[in-house]
């Protein structure tokens, strides 16, 4: 599957995400980085908005990156049903740009955290969850400073009612004070998914877990069918 991984000034995890795309694709090297000024996404079958500190995370995480030309193209790609995965800073960018509901606030304890943790797969209907079952636990690193998911009460209710929760932190493992333990959500259609934890850092055995691969493999059949 041909992924495009966005690269903003200040992105950090874009090579890791590209690496994950490649491993998920059985080592085939057909994915590529997409510079933030690019607007032509033709030929790409999926988009990753990766983690890092786009524009230094200054002002507010994701606030500046969402205005990049590439994000306009990503919005069109998503509107046409293309799969878009936002990881960490990418999740923040997708929320800021309105492609996903909610917002991400500074961790309750205000500190950056980096540790391995467990997620419970939610009920959301999304191609990214194709290889996972609702209720299943997966082990994925948590790594962020502004990962506290927030939505005002009515929006939160809507997200829950429409089954847009993709992942929750396993009981007792919520590292940041996210509402309803939410670690990741999808848009209504399910083709856009954002999460704070880092599946691209759980793709090789030496790192301790390969549970993250499922997310990169999930949309492959759908993309194949579309092509």
């Amino acid at each position, binding site marked *: 599957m041909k992924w495009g991984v966005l690269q903003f000034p200040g992105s950090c995890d874009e090579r890791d995400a590209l690496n994950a795309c490649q491993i998920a694709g059985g080592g085939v090297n057909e994915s590529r980085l997409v510079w933030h000024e690019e607007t032509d996404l033709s030929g790409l079958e999926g988009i990753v908005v990766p983690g890092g500190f786009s524009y230094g995370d200054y*002002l507010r995480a994701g*606030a500046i990156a969402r205005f990049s030309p590439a994000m306009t193209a990503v919005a069109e790609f998503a509107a046409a049903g293309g799969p878009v995965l936002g990881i960490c800073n990418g999740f923040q960018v997708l929320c800021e740009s309105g492609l996903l509901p909610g917002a991400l*606030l*500074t961790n*309750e304890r205000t500190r950056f955290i980096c540790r391995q943790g467990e997620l419970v797969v939610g009920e959301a209907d999304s191609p990214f969850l194709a290889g996972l079952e609702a209720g299943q636990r997966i082990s994925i690193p948590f790594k962020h400073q502004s990962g506290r998911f*927030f*939505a*005002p009460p009515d929006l939160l209710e809507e997200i829950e009612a429409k089954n847009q929760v993709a992942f929750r932190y396993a009981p007792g493992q919520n590292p940041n004070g996210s509402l309803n333990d939410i670690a990741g959500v999808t848009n209504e259609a399910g083709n856009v998914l954002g999460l704070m934890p880092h599946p691209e850092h759980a793709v090789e055995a030496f790192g301790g877990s390969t549970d993250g691969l499922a997310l990169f493999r999930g949309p492959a059949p759908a993309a194949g069918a579309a092509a």
Partner: protein
Amino acid sequence: MIQARVLIRPKEGILDAQGKAVEGALPALGFEGIEHVRVGRIVELQAASADRLEELCEKLLANPLIEDFEIETVSE
């Protein structure tokens, strides 16, 4: 030229982690009787006109879902 000052605060009802951290640190430093600490941002800038400041705040400087903003301007 306009000198503008934008105050951006966490919306009422949202846990303000930084404000809470400040409150938590007060007793050990011997400060008493201080409460309701809220931490926000201030952005100061010079603009040719005030026309689009509101838009700038809504689009970039603040996130209306979680933050309120207030613009104060002084013409120079």
